[in-house]
Every structure is written in structure tokens, then in C-alpha cells.
């Protein structure tokens, strides 16, 4: 075996003096600057591991990670599975469709069962906002939120920030535009939190029907410290992208049309598709991002999606490294 010194570097990371004490990762809203830095630096190490000929380390050998997905997902679930396996953990995937969930078992009973069979970490996705918070109150295993309803998707925001930092360095003062269905997006919410913490200037952009209460044009700002951080709100994408350093387009769910929220995909694309002429208004070399999966020709024009400014594939690769970092830090937690 080669690179044992690098394995030791990986081991050392978890005993860094800025120790990770968080049992669960439910959102990014309460991460400290030190925690964010630790996650980013640990991700650097994981990127290094993934760059090796044999991208494996045995750090989490003997640990069991269970992914519990109540919603369909390809990349997030696969990304966590790859991350766990790259660290030597046993990974078990439970799709809610194929388990006792179909027989009417409650969420709490399901996760208690998974805990009883030895899950150290539960990676869960659920269609109901707050479901991982409920679970975290009822089990001793670590809970990683892999997306809950419209609420949060912490590892997506972390991989987005990591990708931005890789290109821009510090994002402090950088202008990031998030365009699309803000109201129903957990990606948007977690990115608003994390980018605000990191000092970026965030603008959300979308039609008024896809902006949530408090973020619609003319809504009075909420002063409550528990509210989402203040962001700029814009319904005109041309105006929003002016001088932007990053433009992140969100996936548009087709069911928004039937809900009367949008007239048609065609009209949405006419107003909110990131195309070459709109991107030309952004800062030179501005990054184009998308959490995937893309509706081809809707959120981003094919030319822009495949342009050199697009870092969409890199987001996916970084996603594995970020999730390795999260798993590693979570498994290093000393429990009482």
C-alpha cells in the first residue's frame, strides 16, 4: 500500500484542534465560520484522496452508513454511497418504496429499526420539511439531512460553496444570483444561509409566483434574527445578472405548471433561461452552476450549459468530496 502518510493526514484531520462536535447536520444555518472552514479544508483532503489511483482510505472501516431516501434521487444518494465507500464504511441503501414504510410504519419506528441494526450515520432525504429534525430528536445515530422538503439541503450548499471557492477564492463581496423556483427550493434556502455567512452578496430571482412570502417584491423585510438572511430580490433576470460573479439556476419542477404558478415552460424559458446574451451581462468569467438534474433547454441554454463557464460537472465531483468530509467529521464525534 502506498501513501500511508496521506492516510495519516486524513486521520489527523479529525483530531484537529478545531474539533467537530456536531452530532447531526440538519442545515447550514447554525454553522460557525470555523466549522465551515474545517469542512472546506477537510474537503480539500478528500479531493486529494479521490485523485489517487485507488481512491480509498480505511478511515471509516467498521462504520455503518444507512441512506434512507423517501424521495427519488440519483446523484445525492449515489454521491453519499461513493463517499462512504471511499472511506471504507459499509453503506446500506434503503429506499422508502421498498421497505416497511409501504406497510404504514411511522418514520420514528423506521429509523429506530435502522439504529437498532447498527447505523452509525443515517443519511436521509424526505419530502416533508423538518422530518430529519424529528428523527434527530429520537435516535442516537448521527443524522445527515440529504434534503428535506423545501427546507434545507446542507451538503448541496457546502459543495456549491466549495466549488465557488475553488474558482473565486474567498467569496466575500462576490455577487451570487440564484434564479428559478426559490419558493419550493431547499437548495436556494441552504445556499442563502451559507453564502450569507461566507460574506457573499446574494440575489434571488424568479417570477413572483415562485418567490416565498417575505421574498416577494415589495414585501417588508423581516427583522427577526430567526428569519432567512436578507437578500436582494429581483424578478427581472437581465437586471439580476448584471455584474454577477456566479449565476446558479435551479431545477424547475414540471408540476409548477399544473399548480397555476407558471403559464408554460416556454414562457418560463423566455423570461428566466440563462442564455448567452444574459450571461454576457454578468462579470467576465462568471461561473454557471446548477444543482441538477437539468431540464434541457429550460433553465440554462445548451450553449451556456456546455460552455467553459459552466462548473456543473465539477459540482457533482465536489459533491462526493464534500460528503466524504461530512461523514468523516460526523464519525469523529465523541459521544457521551
Amino acid at each position, binding site marked *: 500500500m502506498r501513501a500511508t502518510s496521506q492516510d495519516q493526514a486524513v486521520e489527523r484531520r479529525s483530531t484537529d484542534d478545531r474539533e467537530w462536535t456536531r452530532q447531526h447536520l*440538519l*442545515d447550514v444555518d*447554525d454553522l460557525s465560520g470555523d466549522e465551515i472552514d474545517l469542512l472546506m479544508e477537510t474537503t480539500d483532503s478528500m479531493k486529494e484522496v479521490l485523485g489517487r489511483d485507488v481512491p480509498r482510505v480505511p478511515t471509516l472501516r467498521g462504520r455503518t452508513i444507512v441512506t434512507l431516501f423517501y424521495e427519488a434521487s440519483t446523484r445525492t444518494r449515489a454521491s453519499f454511497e461513493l463517499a462512504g465507500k471511499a472511506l471504507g464504511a459499509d453503506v446500506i441503501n434503503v429506499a422508502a418504496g421498498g421497505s416497511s414504510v409501504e406497510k404504514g410504519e*411511522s*418514520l*420514528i419506528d423506521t429509523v429506530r429499526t435502522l439504529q437498532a441494526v447498527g447505523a452509525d450515520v443515517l443519511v436521509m432525504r*424526505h*419530502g*416533508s*420539511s*423538518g*422530518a430529519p*429534525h*424529528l428523527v*434527530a430528536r429520537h435516535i442516537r445515530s448521527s443524522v445527515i439531512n440529504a434534503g*428535506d*422538503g*423545501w*427546507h*434545507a439541503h446542507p451538503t448541496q450548499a457546502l459543495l456549491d460553496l466549495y466549488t465557488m471557492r475553488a474558482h473565486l477564492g474567498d467569496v466575500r463581496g462576490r455577487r451570487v444570483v440564484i434564479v428559478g423556483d426559490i419558493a419550493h427550493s*431547499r437548495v436556494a*434556502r441552504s445556499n442563502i444561509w451559507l453564502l450569507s455567512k461566507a460574506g457573499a452578496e446574494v440575489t434571488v430571482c424568479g417570477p413572483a409566483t415562485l418567490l*416565498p*412570502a*417575505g*421574498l416577494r417584491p415589495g414585501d417588508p423585510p*423581516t427583522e*427577526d434574527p*430567526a*428569519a*432567512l438572511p436578507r437578500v436582494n430580490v429581483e424578478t427581472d433576470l437581465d437586471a439580476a445578472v448584471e455584474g454577477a460573479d456566479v449565476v446558479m439556476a435551479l431545477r424547475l419542477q414540471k408540476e409548477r405548471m399544473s399548480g397555476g404558478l407558471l403559464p408554460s415552460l416556454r414562457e418560463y424559458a423566455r423570461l428566466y433561461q440563462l442564455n448567452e446574451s444574459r450571461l454576457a451581462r454578468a462579470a467576465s468569467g462568471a461561473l454557471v452552476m446548477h444543482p441538477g438534474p437539468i431540464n434541457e433547454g429550460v433553465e440554462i441554454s445548451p450553449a451556456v450549459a456546455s460552455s467553459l463557464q459552466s462548473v456543473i460537472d465539477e459540482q457533482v465531483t465536489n459533491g462526493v468530496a464534500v460528503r466524504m468530509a461530512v461523514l468523516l467529521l460526523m464519525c469523529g464525534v465523541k459521544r457521551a
Partner: protein
Amino acid sequence: MSDITVRGGRVLDPANGFDAVADVVVRKGVVVELAKPGGKASGETIDAAGLVVCPGFVDIHAHLREPGFEHKETIATGTQAAARGGFTTVCAMPNTEPATDSAGAVEFILRTAAAKGVVRVLPIGCVTKGRAGHELAELSELADAGVVAFSDDGAPVTDAALMRRALEYAGMLQTPVIDHAEEPALAAGGVMHEGWVSTRLGLRGVPAAAEETAVARDIALAETTGSRVHIAHISTAGSVELVRAAKARGLPVTAEVTPHHLTLTHEAVLTGPSEGGALAYDTNAKVNPPLRTPEDVAACVAGLLDATIDCIATDHAPHATQDKLCEFDAAAMGISGLETALALCLTAIPLEAAVERLTIAPATTLELARHVPGIGSLSKGAPGDVVIIDPEAEWTVEPETFASLGKNTPLAGRTLKGRVVATVYGGKVVYDAR
């Protein structure tokens, strides 16, 4: 029916404008006089010195769940909860299984209440068959069987034409219609108030307009028909303003507000009973209509104090533990409210106002004296329903000690001021915490 004398308390009887230290004398289950303190008494006595004595509270909006949902509440446990909360009369909403849309269903409730209940139960009948919103229930037969009002509560009467006919028909029977004012298309799928908290939590919101458009419709129909409409559990500043304007025009509109809409905001969903820490997604704060903003709460309090809102009603909605111990989206809506009502109200409004809005005001709102003469008062000949309260006593809400099977309250662990010391129904002590 028994004899009892409640001695030496401060007697507050808003129906008669009475506020003085006196003995309340009940003979054969009926109030015979408010006597000068210190007179001789026969039969059982309760020493109420230093306490407040008032007519038993009247709740015109409660869910007793029986028949059909006995794992959530029964008439026995619901009336025990009522007694603990100082209520001697409970109007039972008809969203049972089967729904209270027939004389037989009404008779079941009355018979069960007589056999197992510890306070008075007055049934409310459905507006439509099966609460389905399609055809009128047999309202006249229901009225003859003893219902005091009609409502499809839990669901609005969505069809405006059907609501119009219901008001016309119920007006003929001189029985009020209570509407759960909600425009379903606007409320669809919503699980909390639409505002910054729902945005923060990523939960689907119910806009204030879902209630206000329905209240506006009901007011227009009250004007069209001349029949009275009663708005259940009003919750927004806009609704209060609509009712205020309607009353100013002399329209036959009344409204009630719950203790929780007088005191709690949508932030209760965020923080749960203990402030700070991780997001709570507190399912015990999930209720319909949802807890709203501080501005809405202030408007409800002001509306209650200026008589725009006629009275307080609990909307006691007990649920089993598993109905709440689940994802927020999946959780049942409702708060178990009978046992915290008084204390919660006292955090919002003065004692004298609270007693009035819990006694004679609700009785008058549904014209309950037509069914029970003297109800909500300590008038001579009124039922011997008396509650003794200590408005200064502090206590901590411990849901596990509730008589109600529904332990679902967002107030667990909260210290409140104002406690029921004893409840007398028909001259008999039905709750005694001394």
C-alpha cells in the same frame, strides 16, 4: 341535583353586572341567591375566601371526538377536561364518525353525555349531510333533536349557493350557522400561516386571505339572507376588520376567537415550547386556522375587547400522541385547549373581561338560554354551575396530567397564571383541586 354554598369569594357575574364578595347559594342544582357573606348555610360548603367565583364557563366550540375517534377523546374524558378547565357547558362539534347529521346521532351524544359526562354537552349538528358540502342535512329534525347550532366545522361550506340556502333554512329555525371560514383553494395543502416563518421552515403556508375571503363571503350572505352567521375561530386582523365593519352596518354576524389565537404566534412552530436551539417544527402548534402574526394576535385581542369578537371558544381539538409524533406535514391539526383556556386568556385580557367572554357572552352568542334558561349567569333560577378560580396562582402546564386524552398542547412546560380551583355543575362538585 344537590345543595351547595360557595362562601366568601369575590363573585363575578358579568351577566348581572355583579362584582362583590358574596355567598353563592345553590339548592336542588339551581342558583337561589347571591347572599351576604357569613350567613348560615346548609349542605356542602366550599370556602372561596380570597378566590374568584363566577358562572361555569361555556365553550361553544369543542371536539369531543365520540363517536368514531375514541382514541383521541371521549365524551367522558372531554367533559372531565372541561371540568378541569372551569367549563360546565361544552358545545360538541359534529365532525365525528358518523357525523352528527341525524337525530339518532344527536341522541347518542345526549345519552352518552348524560351517562358518562360530568358537565353539560350541547350538540352542534351538521349543515350538510356527512359534512360533505353537497346537500343540506335535515336541519329541522336536528333542531328538534336538540342541536344548538349548525356547522360543518373542520370543513367550510365551500359552495356559496349551498351556504346561502343553509342560512335561509336555518334562519327559519332560528338556529345559528357557524362557519369555519376558509377558502379551500387558497388554503390547499397549507400547514401553517404563510409568512416569514413558513418561508424559513420551508412549509406550505395558508395566507390570511384564505380566511378573509370566506369571512367576506359569509358577511355578504348574512346580508342577503338576513340570517345570522357565526364565524368560528377568527384569526386574522383583516377578518376582525371585516366583522367590525359588518357589525357597524347592523348585519347579523358574530364571531369567536380561541385562547391560542389571542396569545400565540406562528413563531411557536419554529421554536416549540422552549425558545432557542434547533428548529422545533412543533406539531403541537399546528392548528387550523394557523397561529398567525403578532399583529393578528393584537387585532384579535383588540377585537375581543371592543366586542367586535363576541366571545372566546376553545376549539378544543384533542389528538392521540401518534397523530402528532410524525412529520409536520402529516401531523393532525389542533390543540387540546380546555384545560389551559382560562390561564391563556388571562395572559391576554383582564380577568373581568375574560370571565364575561367565557360565560354570558358565548351563551348569548348561540342564544343558549333558549335551551338552558339562565346559562352563563348566576341569576336566580340559573343552573348551579359555578367555577372557583385563583387568578394569581401560577402553575406549569404538564400535558401528561390532563384529563383530556389529547396531550397535544404547544404550552407544555410553560408557567401560566390563573388556575381553576373547583368546578360545580348543577350543584355538584365535578372538579376539586383544593
